[in-house]
């Protein structure tokens, strides 16, 4: 077994009672001393939750062909980005299925910055490098030098403002600024994975511990992986390895809104267009139990008493009850009596929409 990596904040997590677990090749806190539910509440009920997500990867793409290259490797239309704007997007393979989902930051006309999933980092970077050979572009993996913190919740802006040299009100949703946090250069973006207002901060590793402590001193509450997963699942946000993978295209995953077939050629475009003609192999749906129980990943989903698919993410939502995302046969996406098989018993469910609870992102 390969040794697990640690972020620059490992010792801080342990000092706060963080229960460290292996995650995407890193030792990360699944929860701190007060437990996942208290952490979840801190983010949903007016606080500011602080997440170390430094395991995620960052790739800088620069050069005269940066735009053409990113149009070729990502699904969304990069030409629509203006400076200081962020775009949710994906990398597909030639089969039209997912290599990863990413965010694309436009820093300047010939400079972009990608945020990628930790577990996919080496695969993504190898793919980007090999796809880049016919473009005048430089692809550099900056992950190991970068600390990524998320500060999420209604109090996020109030907590961060005293540490920065810009007015955070000037940053809109899915926009960013290059400024300073506690004197350190940073990318500050109004993005996140919780459905609350908040920011993600890209920092040099050397500044990580100081800024972590300053945010905690300002009232931020540290949040582990368990609460992070609760918060993202309540929003119905896709997670690589769950809703998206090399087994599904954006059609199955309801991610055609980030897949612009009309923008011109890109890797996977032909396969997705063909799949669109044939129809989806399965469909991602949102469901809610109408009886007691917790729907969990891999539990079978029954339609009219027969197995139609399985849950990809499920949870007990303190606000919405038993909720889940699941793949079912396309003919069952909208019709048929729904149930989830829990320990051999069919527990009744109904189709619903995401987000499962109200989103408070600043639009």
């Amino acid at each position, binding site marked *: 077994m390969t040794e697990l990596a640690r972020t620059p904040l490992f010792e801080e997590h342990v000092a706060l009672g963080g229960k460290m677990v292996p995650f995407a090749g890193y030792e990360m806190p699944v929860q701190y001393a007060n437990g996942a539910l208290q952490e979840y509440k801190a983010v949903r009920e007016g606080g500011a939750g602080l997440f170390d997500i430094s395991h995620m990867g960052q790739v800088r793409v620069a050069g005269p062909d940066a735009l053409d290259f990113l149009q070729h490797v990502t699904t969304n239309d990069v030409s629509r980005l203006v400076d200081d704007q962020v775009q949710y997007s994906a990398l597909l393979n030639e089969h039209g299925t997912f290599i990863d989902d990413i965010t694309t930051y436009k820093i300047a006309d010939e400079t972009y910055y990608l945020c990628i999933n930790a577990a996919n980092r080496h695969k993504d970077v190898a793919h980007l490098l090999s796809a880049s050979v016919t473009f005048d572009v430089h692809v550099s993996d900056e992950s190991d030098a970068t600390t990524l913190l998320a500060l999420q919740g209604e109090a996020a802006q109030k907590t961060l403002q005293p540490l920065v040299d810009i007015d955070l009100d000037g940053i809109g949703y899915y926009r960013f600024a290059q400024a300073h946090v506690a004197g350190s250069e940073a990318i500050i973006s109004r993005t996140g994975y919780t459905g609350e207002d908040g920011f993600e901060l890209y920092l040099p590793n050397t500044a990580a511990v100081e800024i972590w402590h300053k945010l905690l001193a300002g009232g931020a509450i540290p949040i582990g992986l*368990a609460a992070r997963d609760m918060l993202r699942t309540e929003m119905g946000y896709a997670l690589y390895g769950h809703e998206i993978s090399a087994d599904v295209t954006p059609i199955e995953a309801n991610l055609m809104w980030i897949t612009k077939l009309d923008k011109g050629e890109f890797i996977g475009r032909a396969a997705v267009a063909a799949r669109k003609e044939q129809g989806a192999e399965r469909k991602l749906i949102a469901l809610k139990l109408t009886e007691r129980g*917790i729907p969990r990943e891999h539990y079978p989903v029954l339609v009219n008493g027969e197995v139609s698919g399985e849950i990809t993410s499920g949870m*007990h939502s303190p606000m919405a009850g038993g909720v889940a995302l699941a793949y079912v046969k396309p003919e069952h996406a909208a019709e048929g009596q729904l149930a989830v098989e829990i320990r051999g018993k069919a527990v009744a469910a109904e189709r619903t929409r995401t987000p499962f609870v109200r989103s408070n992102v600043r639009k």
Partner: protein
Amino acid sequence: MTIPADLKYTKEHEWVRLEGDIATLGISDHAQEALGDIVFVELPEVGREIAPGEAFAVVESVKAVSDVYAPVGGEIIEVNSELEAEPEKVNTDPYGAGWIAKVKTSGASAELLDEAAYTLYLEE
């Protein structure tokens, strides 16, 4: 972590309080702490016969699903239905308000540890 001296324990971290032929069952402080925030308890049906070592209830935390195994055999005569609305009682008071079921024992039992033996077991 507390390990009351008047209870017996299993190696799967259940506890049992024996009073005559009535046994009250739950999970230990160690078990609730290892599981984390408990958000769901699946209780057995009253009247069900259980054998020692049989999975008779399920406790679910935010991240995990865990079977609860019977320390003793017998008939379920009462369940703690308050846990349906307040499963967190298993965290806050595992030996009191967080009890799971009461059994009229048949006399059969799994391997039970006393306080000293369970403490030693946890240290191993």
